[in-house]
């Protein structure tokens, strides 16, 4: 695959950047009603350990006969060998994908996009704020920071879901609560089970539990539904987290992943090449980046 493994003696071999390589589905299970977890491994054994990517990047995934679509990577490069994806069934491609069994193949190419600026984030306190399916890309960052724990400062993980049943990776994150090297707080908008032991309320309600934060020394990574961005941004700016240290990953229609097909263009940026990770400062002066309402009325 182009970016994964094609550096030979520092010279890039010229390949077709649209060429999907075949990957085998190793494991697949439902996380919620409409979201599945996929683990995949390169069919060509030589490619398995050569892959490299950054948290926040994405791949273009092909399902035979259905086409291609962008998917966030949910695994961390610090655990090589398998790639993991957290995928919601929303259209015909994902419908067919959900019908595939273990050992059937899919096409992958990538990784694409800028990913999180890990180099700049090292040494800083990290706040990760996930809502709904936003965890698909933030899980990669969370696991990466946990695997390289000594390279980062304090770590906070806030995760909101609509109901306990809709919380992705619920068991995995429940176990994080017991670790002493991060603060992990989980919340649901509404507990419809009567058995939820964690917080109830929206994710911004969790800010009051944070205590004092070293704002200038903090990177915040946020991904979730637009309404969540709006309120989370307000809170982070109020806390004085610098706008260029507030990171968000965005979704757009994409047909190529390599800055050619035009669909993900926003002014002079391509979400696939210049994103999908943008800073809140980008959002403030790129009006189309997030829908109206998020950046309105902000003059500061």
């Amino acid at each position: 695959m182009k970016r994964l493994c094609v550096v030979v003696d520092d010279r890039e071999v010229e390949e077709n950047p649209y060429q999907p390589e075949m990957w085998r589905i190793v494991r697949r299970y439902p996380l919620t009603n409409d979201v599945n977890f996929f683990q995949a491994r390169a069919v060509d054994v030589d490619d398995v350990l050569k892959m490299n990517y950054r948290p926040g990047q994405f791949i273009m995934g092909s399902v035979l006969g259905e086409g291609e679509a962008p998917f966030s990577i949910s695994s961390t490069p610090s655990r090589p060998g398998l790639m993991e994806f957290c995928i919601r069934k929303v259209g015909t491609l994902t419908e067919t994908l959900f019908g595939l069994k273990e050992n059937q193949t899919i096409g992958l190419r990538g990784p694409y996009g800028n990913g999180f600026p890990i180099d700049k984030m090292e040494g800083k306190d990290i706040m990760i704020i996930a809502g709904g399916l936003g965890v698909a890309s933030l899980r990669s960052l969370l696991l990466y920071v946990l695997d390289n724990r000594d390279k980062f400062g304090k770590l906070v993980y806030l995760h909101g879901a609509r109901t306990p049943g809709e919380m992705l990776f619920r068991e995995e994150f429940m176990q994080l609560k017991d670790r002493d090297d991060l603060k992990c707080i989980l919340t649901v908008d509404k507990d419809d089970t009567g058995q939820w032991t964690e917080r109830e309320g929206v994710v911004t309600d969790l800010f009051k539990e944070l205590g004092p934060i070293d704002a200038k020394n903090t990177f915040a990574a946020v991904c979730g539904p637009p309404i969540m961005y709006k309120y989370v941004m307000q809170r982070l700016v109020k806390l004085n987290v610098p706008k260029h240290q507030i990171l968000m990953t965005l979704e757009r229609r994409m047909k190529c992943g390599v800055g050619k097909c035009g669909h993900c263009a926003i002014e002079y940026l391509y979400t696939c090449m210049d994103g999908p990770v943008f800073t809140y400062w980008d959002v403030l002066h790129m009006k189309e980046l997030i829908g109206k309402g998020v950046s309105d009325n902000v003059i500061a």
Partner: protein
Amino acid sequence: MILKMKKEDLSAFLESAKEWGELWGPTRKGERVAFEKVETLSQMDLKATRTIIPPKKFLYPPRFTMFDYDDKGYVERTGDVPNRILFGIHPCDVHGIQIMDELFLEEYKDPYYAERREKTLLLGHSCIPDDKCMCFATDTEFIAEGFDLFFTDLKMFYLVWVGSSRGHDIVRMRPELFSRDIGKDDIMNYTEYRNWKSSQFTSKADFTGMPDIFELGYNSPVWEELAEKCLSCGQCTMACPTCNCYNVVDEVDLGTVEGTRDRFWDSCMFREYSLVAGGHNFRDSRADRLKLWYTHKLQAYIGEFGKPACVGCGRCVATCPVDINVVSVSKALKEQEVGK
């Protein structure tokens, strides 16, 4: 390198050049002008101002197959492109191709575009501007590079710019037709030609200050008024020499898992352009889609590359059925009023 050639020798030169590949040039069918495969110079109309579709269609066809696939994987389909000589490309369109080159040949080189670019010889030709031409406003009325050969018509002679090594190879097929003997009269004729060309424009296009005017007018009601008129037909994007957007679909042979992955021109004017799975549309309103196109051409690209992504060819002016084009939109934004 600039050479000189007698006008009556052009036909013999093109005949020899055909050894390199198929000869294509602008031909007229009634009102319409299009690049067609020709056998002789006489089939071409070198006085025609613009073809309906720019030469991008040769480098980047409206529809083609990228891959054949089956359950083993995806196999690239390249290698079935003929050698072509495009004769009669105007400066604006060479500028357009240079913008396409930046996009397709730089980072993540596109093998389909690269192959066609490699197998296409660009022989430019000077042009006669009409009332829709506005290359004077985009600084694209002359061209210094990007072609293989460029012929400037100076009545009795052609001055022939040699823009590439392979262009020079074509010249070397008939060296006796070219001369290096350029004298005082030729220089004066050329100066006169430039002055004449510059005096021909009647368009009122003016893109000065566009990035700031777009920024200031982002929420202007002018966009809604334009959207009221727009038909979302996408003809502007098909006719624009710098529009590159495409869509990709997998076609399946019925009852099998084999098929082709096809790529075809898309348009940001289409409603589905920014629609993602799950039904969210990032540009549901026609005003937002119009704004994207014009912002991209006249604001964002200038910010990024210091020049507009408009080469002044006038095709949007000639094509749009409801008079929405770079001239009318920039004027409407400046005057805060949509012209009738």
